């Protein structure tokens, strides 16, 4: 079981738009809510009202400052959850077969009743996508809301991961990345979607769309100048110009 499938029928995953993510943590909490109530054990919280509150989360939003050479520093919000890698190292290290990659859609899951909580899968994951739940003693990770996306008790339009459904800025997209014609694959192609840590050789399914170029006004100064060509230098001149212009209307 912990051998990876040669190929999956589909490669479901997320495309996360770093150009649009405002860092609001909506996806983080929506995920926490859904997965506390659904798939497997609840996501527990230790010392929730105390000095060192620390709970299990399957999705967390980082933030980074990026300093270009000749422009102001930028702030990039960076949501991160399981990337459902094609070569998922977390799966092959699992001694019990609890971790596996589904053949039909490529989702990497933990079968909690087989998990011994050894933590090795979390060690093997370069992205920090897996967290051991301290109350339950089993490994928790993003399920891509496998209990939503096929859920016949939900209206069709709600059959998306909770994080995607809730994202206010529309920075999260869900779909089949093995289908080149899917919306997500097109987004990746158009916007130069990228892998995280490609050198780790994990071949992530989830892709990140890089921020669009920022603060490019300096390059446009000459183009913009004609828009401020003066029609008058002082009030009398401006009023005369207004009169003349209104005549023409």
């Amino acid at each position, binding site marked *: 079981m912990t051998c990876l499938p040669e190929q999956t029928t589909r490669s479901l995953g997320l495309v996360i738009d770093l150009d649009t993510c405002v860092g609001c943590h909506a996806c983080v909490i929506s995920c926490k809510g859904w997965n506390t109530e659904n798939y497997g054990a609840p996501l527990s919280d230790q010392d929730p009202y105390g000095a060192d509150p620390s709970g299990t989360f399957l999705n967390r939003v980082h933030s980074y400052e990026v300093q270009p050479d000749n422009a102001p520093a930028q*702030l990039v919000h960076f949501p991160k959850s399981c990337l459902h890698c094609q070569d998922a190292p977390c799966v092959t290290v699992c001694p019990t077969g609890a971790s596996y990659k589904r053949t039909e859609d490529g989702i990497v899951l933990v079968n909690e009743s087989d998990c011994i909580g050894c933590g090795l899968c979390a060690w093997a994951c370069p992205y920090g996508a897996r967290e051991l739940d301290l109350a339950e003693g089993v490994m928790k990770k993003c399920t891509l809301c496998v*209990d939503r*996306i096929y859920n016949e008790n939900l209206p069709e339009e709600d059959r998306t991961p909770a994080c995607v459904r809730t994202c206010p800025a529309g920075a999260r997209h869900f779909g089949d990345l093995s289908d080149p014609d899917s919306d997500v694959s097109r987004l990746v192609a158009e916007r130069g979607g990228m892998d995280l840590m490609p050198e780790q050789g994990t071949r992530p399914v989830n892709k990140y769309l890089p921020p669009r170029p920022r603060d490019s006004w300096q390059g446009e100064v000459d183009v913009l100048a004609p828009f401020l060509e003066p029609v008058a230098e*002082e009030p009398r001149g401006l009023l005369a110009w207004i009169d003349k212009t209104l005549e023409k209307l």
Partner: protein
Amino acid sequence: MAQPRVETSPRVSDEVRKTTCYMCACRCGINVHMKDGKVAYIEGNRDHPVNKGVLCAKGSAGIMQHNAPSRLRAPLKRVGPRGSGRFEEISWDEALDTAVGWLKPLRETAPEKLAFFTGRDQSQSFTGWWAQAYGTPNFAAHGGFCSVNMATAGIYTMGGAFWEFGAPDWEHAKLFLLFGVAEDHDSNPIKMGIGRLKERGAKVIGVNPIRSGYNAVADDWIGITPGTDGLLILSLVHCLLKAGRIDLDYLARFTNAPVLLECNPKSPDHGLFLRDADGKPQVIDRATGKQVAWDTPGIMPDLTGHVRRAGVTHTSVMHHIAEHYLDPQYAPEAVADRCGLTPERIRALAAELARAAFDDPVVIDRPWTDFRGDRHDRMVGRPVAIHAMRGISAHANGFQTCRALHILQILLGAVETPGGMRFKPPYPKPAEAHPRPHARARPGQPLNGPHLGYPQGPEDLALSDDGLPLRIDKAFTWENPLSAHGLMHMVISNAHAGDPYRIDTLFLYMANMAWNSSMNTAGVMEMLTDTDENGDYKIPRIIYSDAYSSEMVAYADLILPDTTYLERHDCISLLDRPISEPEAAADAIRWPVVEPDRDVRGFQSVLLDLGARLGLPGMIDEGGAPTYADYADYIQNHERRPGVGPLAGWRMSDTGLTHGRGSPNAAQIDSYIANGGFCTLHIPEEAQYFKPWNRAYQDWAVTTGLCDTAAPYLFQLYVEPLRRFQRAAEGHGDQQPPDHLRDQIKGKLTPLPLWYAPDAGSPDTYPVHALTQRPMAMYHSWGSQNAWLRQVHGHNPMYLPSRLMQEHGLQDGDWARVTSPQGEITVPVMEMAALNPNTIWTWNAIGKRKGAWALKPGAPEATKGFLLNHLIHELLPPKGDGLRWSNSDPVTGQAAWFDLRVRLEKAEAPPEESRPAFDAVTSPVGQGPDQLTWQSKT
């Protein structure tokens, strides 16, 4: 080996109950999934006009708020000294009897001695109605320390402002210019809007000292120096005027730019509009050259109109705009340094606005007719959408800065046109259509009208015949004449000082005044516990209602415990702050999706009970029996005007159910529940733009009961009421300001916006600006009791720009002492490069008092977290004249939080805790559990 079988279609819930979120002020629609009678999961409601299915972190964490261990459980009577947190639980009867025992004698003798102020109240039309029936002039909500500058400037200028009042046209805008915004103000709609703009390839420019949140995703960031936004905006106006990049047709038809001014300096009306016998402002008709009333059908007002009479030339407002803003003092070169920008940056921004507005206008092929009867074949718009809130508002120059922003929008022709900014019903609604303030208390009588309003001149001020303030917060006085939301930040300070008079009972709802909602927090805690020479508290009685064990609880004598937002009825009313969108009027309800499991009651129901026990008019029938059983009963059956009640949906007409005007419907709430908790009244297509002047919109507004007669109006580039106050300060009229305020009124209440530097400490001694902002995942103090949210923001560093980190030899995790003219704090620091180089900031209201919110003593909120409030005084430093000058905008009284200036030093010996540190209060609800494994599934 086969794959494990995964249950991919588990039962999601037994039932979905749709109500309105209250995790911040945005009022999104939520689907509450119920399992076995318990709340199991909360998600956004896809059909809801505000959030269309999405939900922020706070909203999704509602389940942790609803179940928070900090929930109050029963009415409480204080048994220890004020501030100790020692209480004993009492019955509701005892609690209400106590309140009646305090309030009844007051009403009969001096109703103004009750000060009733509500914080993040979403039922102000109800609480205001109650206060009016009681008869005290001392009522307001938290607007005065929030964003009243924005609201007031918008309403006086264009009959609407941002957020509930108006929103960008996300579908057509090509350039979006965003100034400082508090995140809870329209949070999901702005996120959705920015997402939509990005999807459409529109450009987003952020003007903000801090590049976080929305500014982080802005294509261009302008890291302006705090408090100088007005200067930047007027410089943009200067550039656009000079280049003739203004919408002449729009200005002529829809604004008071062509209105003629009395230009004779000797006239008592100097600077007021020329009016005809009917009092209508005059314009010159371009076709005939005649002087006519502004609304004469068929005319084309002349922007550059003027008329010569008795040797004096009376010119149009446009002349004055040209004269004011073409002045070289507004040239980019002249302002850039003060704004912390380069002249090139300012010019480029002006040029981008010009290009976006005039190079590629939005044209919608949709004919419409204006109020003068002119038929327009198409709707032509300027696709520049501008939005702003708290960031430019919370300064002592905020009113005029907000005014300047609206002038810029209007000059571009970008308000109520496609691609610009649009109003949400009941707006547009000009200042004259709003009530005037009322403040004359009479023993045993209700107040003669609503408390809050929009003064048109000195005659509307809330002053006694002796010229003394009638209100405890000194709203609507010469100090801040247009204080349309009151000055909640001054209530405790004034009541403690007995200035203008002493009060007896302070009654607060949802206002954490002993902590993050006050400036000068430590000072306020002292005022609340201070005693007179007899050992009696200077503020004799304090009643407080809150659902949670907030810091304020410890300072009250009587606690009326409220329910959580999932246990209550509420109405988000068109009489108040509804959830309308530019293309629809909409209101909503909350309803108890679960019943409380504690001895708590919804505050509004308690207020009705209290009102009935006090015998307040409207709350008892002729026989003295309560008119309303509870708030739900009020929501359904109260009528403010005939046919107009708190909710506009599913009212009764002769022919059956109707929206808008109609008589009460005993099953109205059921209809709301069946419809997902809200009601939408769509605006006809023809009426969706140009609303203030659009006949179709005006007719629709009357039909739906938003107003009683069509009332088209002009945008007020020149605000005449301000000029009326100036005239008084210049010595005209019966109502005269005190001498010490004459210069302030003359200099700052100008009818065309200006910029002045806020008076906030010497830049030499206090060279650095300090700001707070609300994180997207937390709503003021509420978030810290939320087990999920407090993991995201459990403490707050002070963010310093790289320059200041280096200058002071600081590294991440070091501590710094931050000093203002008011006080000193010692706090941990962290570097941020994407920050104005002369500005520091922190997250608002993460710091907590030990013992509050059912947190354990070592909670990082109370050890590493801190409030910036300690550095901000509600008063300006004494000027030596013996007067108490409030730290507020001189026009509106808005609390000037963001004028704060400080100096920094590295704390060589880091303290164990943030300073100042306060003793723990006793928690009236104990402390939360050690572990949560929340799950309602069985």
